[in-house]
Every structure is written in structure tokens, then in C-alpha cells.
């Protein structure tokens, strides 16, 4: 429910939550250092951090820099790797099909049901009273469901090192993000700063298997060693190569290759396990020259699945090129959709070329830290879920906002998200170039795709974007309704531990009664909870001052609420109807 940075796979944009950031780093000098992480080179970041007077501030910015580099790695891998590209095309395909889908729904005078997969299931159709499926919708829904099934199959747990691990495509993307985040922090700020940062992480973070499962693989392959200071080092360059090989999944209905144990080339988890078995037999030399590690992994892929990693990537890209040709030939395709599909494919081609010329910039954290990370520039979106009154700051363009019709009040106009006005790019910058077309995607096609995939039930989402997309659809003549099981996010009321873990504070102020909320007490309420329960919304409006101002503040406020146990007990009955 609370994130400072996230990379949205639907638009490849890096979202920064300025309110969460503000809770962490309120001083201007800190925000400048964070801004350097987003927009400048690593040496500028290093200098900005060194100028900070307090050790705590330095530590915080290093930590934030690490999370930004983690997201930038996602930006890279979503285009470089076959699995990542498949995940992006999951969304692009929906953008391509949207015009046709809405046309089909409107022409039959139907209401669009979200998520789309409800159309495919007789039990859910019966429950939702869908007596016929508009022509053309079935095919689009089936395509979206089939792609989602592939992602779901990636989450199948596989026995490994005495545990059942779900190390499919998404887990491998996270492991890459984590390894290269750690590598960049260590290389750019120094090993001591890195050790200091690791030492201050909460226990739950230090043992977090979501990212650290890759260390089990490292251990089983003998890719770890104890340093003289008693630290356990891992051969991250080998792991980087291995993960890229795992993510080189064979898609597009190609004939699959299987190991004697039945592990196939099409799924990332099976690929990783297959590669692991082969490498065990090849005997791996830990901490060798990273180029040798890469060669060994590339060869292991050939021995295991009949193609090297590079061959697998080339084939994937060639097939994507054909797909793109078919997409661009579609009659009536929106110009912006056509532009973003091409733009993404071109940047992917550039990355693959760079990869073939210098794989170490992608597999080895040291090369990556000084030769690549500063060039990765996803479109940055600054979000303010609480809404900021007035226009977006100078040099920034509004992406989403609101103006109350007929209101001249200063409280009646605000922005929720904004992006730097089109930035200048240098030759080596690795960025999407069709900026305006991507902003249109971010503004409404991506949120609509999310509604089509899972209604409003997403873990990471920005409320105003979904509501704006719904309103836009309605204004265009497409009525929408939700499967009730996907009409709202799950877990709209959670314990406050995440808030305290994130901010490192021991106490905070209740958003309702302003009393102190101590760590270990209190609740976090999702803004959706207020949108779901009218009586709770009324209470919130009162808590925000009541009247017209309270109402406008409520419409504006999509931030989470921290409430004390007493207020929670008072409000909870209002959510039980």
C-alpha cells in the first residue's frame, strides 16, 4: 500500500511518490540528492551525498538511490530479456485491441465488464448476468487470459535446495533488480557504505526471500565465499549472467526443448533449474573473470536447451519484429499506440545490440554501475496521492489532476501526478523517445488496461488514474461495471507496521484525531475503503473540516490514512455493511 518508487510495467515509467519521499526526506538538500539519483549521473549522485552534513542523511539517500537503481534495472530488463518483453507486450496488445474492444461493446449497446476474463467463464457469466458476449470481445479476453496464465504458471513453486521456491520470471526480475541495486550502492558509494547500510536494515529486510532467494542458488552452486571481515560475498556477476539466461524464455509458440528431467525452455523457473543442473555438472569457478562466467552460462544454455542465450534473444526479437509489422498494418490503429509499440521495439533493439557488443555491462554489477546505470532514463512520474493545489511545478507537466466545475476556490484545482517537461537527451541515454505518446498511455490507456486485467484490485496502483480512466471511458460512451470480487483492492485496512518500518519512526500522528500512534498500534486505511463505504466517506469529510472544503479535500485526497486504535474502533463498524 505504501511505495516510494515503482516501475510500472504497463508504461515502463518510474513512479515516485513524493509524499512517501517527503516523510522520509523532508529537507531540501536531501530531495536534491534524490533528484540527482533520478536525473543525473552516478558521480553527481556521489558528490551530492558527500556534501550532506549528517551521516543519517547520507545513509538515507544511499538507501533511496539504491531503490531508484533497482527500478532502473527493471526498466532495462523489461526490454532486454525475453520474459520482460513478453510482460510489456501483455499491455501493448491490450492497447492495440482497445479501439476494437470498445467499438464492439458500444455497438451492441452493452456494458463493459471488468476484468475481461469474466466473459470466458460460464459460472462468472451467470453470476454477473452476462447473457451474451459482444462479438470480438471473446477473442480479446481469451488472448489477455492466455498471457496471464503464462505469468501465473511462472509462479509455480519448484523444489530447490530443500525448499519449494517460486522463482519464475517475476522473481528473477526482482532478483536482478536486487543484485544490481546492491552492486551499484557498493560500487558507487563504496563497500563500507554498503556494509553500513546493510547493517541498519531491519531483520525482516535482511532475511527477505522475495529478493534473497537467489543467494540460495548461489550457495548451491558454490558462488559464495567468506570475506576476511566475516562477510559472505556472492559472485553477483555469475548470478547476473544466470538470471539473464533464465529470463531468455522461448515464447511465440516456438517448439520447446526439454531436459531429461522435463524442464522446458519456455518458462523462466524451469530454465533456471535446468541451467543450474547443467552448471553443476560443468563445475563452476566462483569469482572468476566475469567474461568467463558469462561465456560459461551462455554455453550452459546451449547445452541445456539447444540455443545460447544470445541466440534465444535474437530469435525473440525477430519474432517481435514480425508481430510489430502485423500490428502496424492493423486498420484504424491509434497513432500513439503505433508510436509506442515502435518506440519500445527500437529501444529494445538498441539494448540487444549493446548487449551483444558488451554483455558485461548487463551481467556484471561493476561494469553496470559505471557504464550503464546512469544512462537508463525511464519516464519519471512524480505522484502526489494527496493532491497538490494549483498547477504542476515549473518545468513539469501535469499528467493527472482535477478542476471542480464552476469552482473559483483555490481548493478546487489540483494535480495528482506530473512529469518533467520533455527532457533533453544525450546520445548515450537509453530512453523511450516518443514522450508525448507515452504520456497518453500513462494518462489513460495503461489504467484502462489495468481495469481490463483485474478491475480495481491491484496491489500497486494510483487511485486517481483508475477513476479518471473510468470517467473517460464513460464520457466516450462505454459504460463499465465490475465483477464485485475485483471492484476494490484487497486488504484495504492493514496493520500499521509497514508505515513504521518504512519511516523508521517510533510514533506518528493519527490522521483523524491527531493523537499519537505508537509503533505496534494503529491501522493503515486505503483511500479505496472510503470510496467503498459512503458512511465512512462522510466521516472522512467531517475529519477534513466538513462542508464544501471538506468535500473537495476528500475528493483530492487519495493518500493512505494512518489511524489510531480508538478512531479505528469508531470507524470500523462503518465498513462492515
Amino acid at each position: 500500500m505504501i511505495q516510494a518508487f515503482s516501475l510500472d510495467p504497463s508504461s515502463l515509467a518510474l513512479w515516485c511518490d513524493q509524499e512517501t519521499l517527503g516523510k522520509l526526506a523532508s529537507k531540501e538538500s536531501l530531495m536534491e540528492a534524490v533528484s540527482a539519483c533520478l536525473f543525473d549521473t552516478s558521480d553527481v549522485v556521489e558528490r551530492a551525498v558527500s556534501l550532506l552534513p549528517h551521516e543519517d542523511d547520507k545513509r538515507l539517500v544511499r538507501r533511496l538511490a539504491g531503490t531508484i537503481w533497482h527500478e532502473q534495472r527493471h526498466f532495462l530488463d523489461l526490454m532486454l530479456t525475453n520474459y520482460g518483453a513478453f510482460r510489456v507486450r501483455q499491455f501493448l496488445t491490450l492497447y492495440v485491441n482497445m479501439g476494437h474492444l470498445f467499438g464492439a461493446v458500444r455497438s451492441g449497446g452493452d456494458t463493459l465488464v471488468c476484468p475481461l476474463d469474466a466473459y470466458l467463464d460460464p459460472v462468472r457469466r451467470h453470476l454477473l448476468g452476462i447473457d451474451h458476449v459482444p462479438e470480438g470481445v471473446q477473442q480479446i479476453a481469451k488472448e489477455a487470459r492466455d498471457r496471464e496464465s503464462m505469468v501465473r504458471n511462472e509462479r509455480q513453486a519448484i523444489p530447490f535446495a530443500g525448499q519449494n521456491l517460486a522463482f519464475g520470471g517475476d522473481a528473477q526480475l526482482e532478483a536482478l533488480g536486487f543484485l544490481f541495486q546492491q552492486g551499484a550502492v557498493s560500487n558507487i558509494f563504496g563497500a563500507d557504505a554498503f556494509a553500513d547500510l546493510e547493517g541498519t536494515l531491519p531483520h525482516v529486510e535482511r532475511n527477505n526471500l522475495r529478493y534473497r532467494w537467489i543467494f540460495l542458488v548461489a550457495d548451491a552452486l558454490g558462488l559464495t565465499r567468506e570475506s576476511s571481515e566475516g562477510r559472505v560475498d556472492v559472485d553477483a556477476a555469475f548470478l547476473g549472467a544466470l538470471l539473464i539466461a533464465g529470463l531468455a524464455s522461448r515464447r511465440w509458440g516456438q517448439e520447446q526443448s526439454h531436459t531429461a528431467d522435463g524442464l522446458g525452455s519456455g518458462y523462466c523457473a524451469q530454465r533456471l533449474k535446468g541451467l543450474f543442473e547443467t552448471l553443476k555438472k560443468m563445475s563452476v569457478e566462483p569469482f572468476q573473470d566475469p567474461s568467463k562466467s558469462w561465456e560459461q552460462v551462455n554455453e550452459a544454455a546451449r547445452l541445456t536447451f539447444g540455443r545460447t542465450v544470445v541466440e534465444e534473444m535474437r530469435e525473440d526479437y525477430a519474432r517481435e519484429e514480425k508481430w510489430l509489422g502485423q500490428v502496424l498494418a492493423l486498420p484504424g490503429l491509434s497513432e500513439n499506440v503505433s508510436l509506442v509499440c515502435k518506440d519500445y521495439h527500437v529501444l529494445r533493439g538498441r539494448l540487444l545490440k549493446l548487449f551483444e557488443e558488451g554483455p558485461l555491462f548487463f551481467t556484471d554489477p561493476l561494469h553496470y554501475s559505471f557504464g550503464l546505470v546512469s544512462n537508463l532514463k525511464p519516464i519519471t512520474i512524480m505522484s502526489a496521492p494527496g493532491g497538490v493545489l494549483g498547477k504542476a511545478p515549473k518545468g513539469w507537466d501535469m499528467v493527472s489532476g482535477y478542476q471542480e466545475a464552476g469552482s473559483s476556490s483555490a481548493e478546487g484545482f489540483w494535480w495528482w501526478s506530473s512529469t518533467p517537461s520533455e527532457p533533453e537527451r544525450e546520445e548515450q541515454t537509453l530512453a523511450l523517445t516518443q514522450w508525448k505518446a507515452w504520456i497518453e498511455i500513462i494518462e489513460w490507456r495503461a489504467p484502462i488496461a489495468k481495469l481490463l486485467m483485474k478491475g480495481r484490485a491491484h496491489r500497486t496502483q494510483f487511485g486517481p488514474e483508475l477513476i479518471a480512466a473510468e470517467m473517460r471511458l464513460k464520457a466516450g460512451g462505454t459504460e463499465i461495471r465490475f465483477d464485485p470480487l475485483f471492484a476494490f483492492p484487497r486488504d484495504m485496512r492493514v496493520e500499521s507496521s509497514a508505515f513504521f518500518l518504512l519511516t523508521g519512526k517510533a510514533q506518528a500522528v493519527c490522521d483523524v484525531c491527531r493523537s499519537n500512534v505508537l509503533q505496534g498500534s494503529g491501522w493503515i486505511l486505503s483511500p479505496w475503503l472510503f470510496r467503498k463505504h459512503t458512511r465512512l466517506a462522510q466521516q472522512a469529510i467531517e475529519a477534513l473540516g466538513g462542508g464544501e472544503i471538506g468535500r473537495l479535500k476528500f475528493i483530492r485526497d487519495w493518500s493512505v490514512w494512518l489511524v489510531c486504535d480508538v478512531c479505528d474502533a469508531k470507524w470500523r463498524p462503518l465498513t462492515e455493511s
Partner: protein
Amino acid sequence: MHAKYVSFIASREAIQELYAGEAEDGIQFSEPVAMESPADILDAPIGLGEVKVVLELLTVAINTTAAGAILIERIFDLIKKYQGLQVRIQDPKSGRELGRVSVKTSREEVARVLAS
């Protein structure tokens, strides 16, 4: 008896097993659906990266009382098999949570929830 519809949310393994079980008269399953959204991934580890159980959802039409009883047995078989398993029961028509089944829940309680 009119068909009674309920949705179960639990770990992927448990839902898949429930779905793959022998087809009984009087029970009709929807396709299992992932609860995780494809748009959910890729947030940075800054304090909140706990491991999440991958959840799936299965909606069931129960057409006879006997079928309801069989379903309850199947759920308790899963509870016994998967340590720590919790099954959330929701009303698919409203999305409202009806109850949760864990090792501490009795068959009678579940029967009451299904009959509600």
C-alpha cells in the same frame, strides 16, 4: 435447492488442488483466477518487501446439500494437508467476506457460512 455461489481465496496450490479434484455431482467450478495483478510487480525493496503467498480465487456453484458437504470435506482435507493454510470465503455477488477457514475452524461454522 437453488444453486448457492461462493468464492474461495487461498494459496495457488490449494485452489489448484480443489479445482483439479474429482468432479462431483452438484458442484460446478469456475476457472481459478490469480488474485495478483500483472501490473503489481516491480516495487522497490524499501522496507516492505515481505514474501507474499500467491493467491488464487475459485468460484463454486453448489447445487445440492450433499455437494456442499463434500465441498466442506475437501476444504478440510486441504487445511490438513497445507500447514498454515487459510481459506477466505467471499460472496461473489457482493464481494463481501463471509468468513475464513483455518485449522481452528469447525465444520459446523463453515457449513453455517455456506448456508448464510
